[in-house]
């Protein structure tokens, strides 16, 4: 007779996820019961739900000790908590951006926030997943609502196209990743990451292990839009509603990096000869190609899309020097987490300002930003601040992120790492050109259509811009804030 041992469920550790599920079911219910009368309330509910889910994260962080469930498949440690907080805050900012954007269109508000929270729920699971099945389920839970969100304007052909491209490449990537997982499961006989590490061992790879690791990494390279798997990103970013573009380029990308960190630094740790060269190439061509194509863009959303491809390249760089650091891989993980947090603040901010300006100009073309400084100096200064932060100019947050990446690359002190550091530095200079072109357009060009009426910004959108601006500047001025958080993020035991 089979015996069944009831799994020990730690409700405190699961509380953020449970709160989020409660909130999203409540939104669905409110939307169904009250229909049009309460549709305006769904965005407030979504925002409150996200903030409520932060409370258990704080209590867990105060409590301090790591919690592990389901035989090590679900772990709540400091890394998971930091990433969950980033996801929830990014989600909150996206809700703030969406409130008026979605409320004013003839969109399905209730469903919109339901989908957004579902996707965030998948990301929370991803931060804790330490098992192939959990990672796969988390990836799909965050991706499937995202496919729909990308095509939210369903009567708009561009929206349809954004959704279809994202969908086809997304499911193709997850099939490739799954095939890799199946091979790794076959070699090691386990789905838990730490067991896989022990099962794979170290030393010479047999072809099946190489193929398995390669397929899994390529699957996630799609998710983080690394060149040459980035082709969906610009089209999807342009066709999707702008708040969703911000969401995809920040939260969805961060989730892909979280999965890569977990898989590469826990499960595949012993086989760096397979993935190190791969990441080196991915990082170098991702930042170079992303930046070079961004130079040619005339649409700001598309430019930010290619810029986010390039930023993914910087974040991939620390993967390429794993094992070369004297202090182990913790340094590389810290650099990626630091970059992710800072990137989230500045990229969300840039998109929020673009949304605010587009409320008046109804366009995201670069020329429509002409003379913005004359009639909306506040917005123009903020957008300039965000793009210069993305370029890495002190004292705005971005410089510390770049510094963290360059630091680990130089610390590694191998020829290859040094070459990559040079590639990062050269790319930062290239990127400055197109980031500066946005500022030049706003300052020096004439107002596109001569319309100088000031831009009206709804309160929630202003709050989202403010949140991003404060965090971008605070991190830049006092980088110790972020250093403290990313210090928590060493999860490799």
């Amino acid at each position, binding site marked *: 007779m*089979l*015996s*069944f041992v*009831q799994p020990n469920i730690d409700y405190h550790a699961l509380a953020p996820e449970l709160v989020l599920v409660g909130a999203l*079911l409540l939104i*669905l*219910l409110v939307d*169904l019961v009250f229909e049009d009368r309460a549709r305006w309330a769904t965005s407030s509910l979504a925002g409150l739900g996200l903030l409520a889910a932060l409370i258990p994260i704080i209590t867990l962080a105060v409590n301090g000790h790591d919690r592990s469930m389901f035989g090590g498949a679900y772990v709540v440690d400091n890394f998971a908590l930091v990433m969950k907080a980033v996801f929830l805050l990014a989600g909150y900012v996206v809700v703030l951006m969406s409130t008026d954007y979605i409320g004013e269109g003839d969109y399905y508000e209730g469903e919109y926030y339901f989908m957004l929270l579902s996707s965030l729920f998948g990301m929370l699971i991803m931060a804790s997943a330490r098992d192939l099945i959990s990672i796969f389920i988390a990836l799909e839970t965050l991706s499937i609502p995202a496919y729909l969100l990308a095509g939210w304007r369903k009567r708009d052909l561009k929206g349809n196209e954004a959704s279809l491209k994202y969908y086809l490449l997304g499911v193709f990537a997850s099939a490739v990743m799954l095939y890799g997982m199946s091979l790794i499961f076959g070699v090691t006989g386990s789905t838990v990451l730490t067991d896989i590490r022990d099962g794979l061992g170290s030393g010479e790879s047999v072809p099946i292990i190489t193929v398995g690791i390669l397929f899994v990494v390529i699957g996630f390279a799609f998710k983080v839009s690394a060149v040459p798997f980035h082709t969906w990103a610009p089209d999807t970013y342009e066709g999707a509603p702008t708040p969703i573009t911000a969401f995809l380029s920040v939260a969805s990308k961060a989730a892909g990096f979280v999965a890569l960190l977990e898989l590469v630094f826990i499960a595949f740790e012993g086989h760096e000869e397979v993935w190190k060269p791969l990441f080196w190439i991915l990082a170098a061509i991702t930042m170079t190609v992303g930046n070079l194509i961004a130079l040619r863009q005339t649409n700001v959303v598309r430019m930010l899309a290619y810029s986010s491809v390039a930023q993914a390249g910087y974040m991939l760089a620390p993967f390429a020097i794993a094992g070369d650091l004297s202090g182990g891989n913790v340094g590389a993980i810290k650099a990626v987490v630091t970059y992710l947090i800072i990137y989230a603040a500045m990229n969300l901010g840039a998109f929020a300002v673009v949304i605010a300006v587009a409320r008046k100009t109804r366009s995201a073309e670069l020329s429509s930003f002409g003379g913005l400084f004359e009639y909306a100096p506040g917005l123009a200064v903020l957008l300039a601040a965000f793009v210069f932060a993305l370029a890495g100019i002190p004292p705005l947050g971005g410089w510390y992120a770049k510094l963290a990446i360059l630091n680990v690359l130089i610390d590694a002190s191998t020829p290859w790492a040094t070459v990559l550091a040079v590639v990062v530095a050269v790319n930062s200079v290239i990127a400055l050109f197109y980031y500066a072109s946005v500022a030049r357009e706003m300052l020096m060009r004439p107002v596109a259509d001569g319309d100088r009426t000031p831009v009206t910004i709804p309160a929630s959108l202003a709050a989202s811009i403010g949140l991003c601006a404060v965090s971008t500047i605070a991190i830049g001025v006092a980088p110790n804030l972020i250093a403290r958080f990313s210090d928590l993020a060493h999860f490799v035991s």
Partner: protein
Amino acid sequence: MSEFLRAYLTVAVFAAFAGLLIAGVLGLSRLIRPNRPTPQKLLTYESGVDPVGSGFSQSQVRYYIFALLFVMFDVEAVFIFPWAMRLELYQVFGLVEMAVFIVILVFGLVYAWRKGVLRWV
């Protein structure tokens, strides 16, 4: 009689009983119902559509939502079967877990119902 055949005897008894039941119900209704055939009634039933034209024809797009709903709920049942096989083992814990799972599925069904997807148009 061997144990093997005895096991099959049970199956045979069940089969006979099932056959008798169907024959009995259909026979009874044939005896008591009026019989007025019209060409409409004699048509092959095909999801409410007249079976005319070639076998390859376009169907109404409005069916696709039913199909999608069916696919989703059908596939979710895959989680319920293994659970049902070992229900006594999981006891109250398993019951509560499955209740949570089904309640979340019901949310989906309620959504479809409120949006009028289940109404025949």
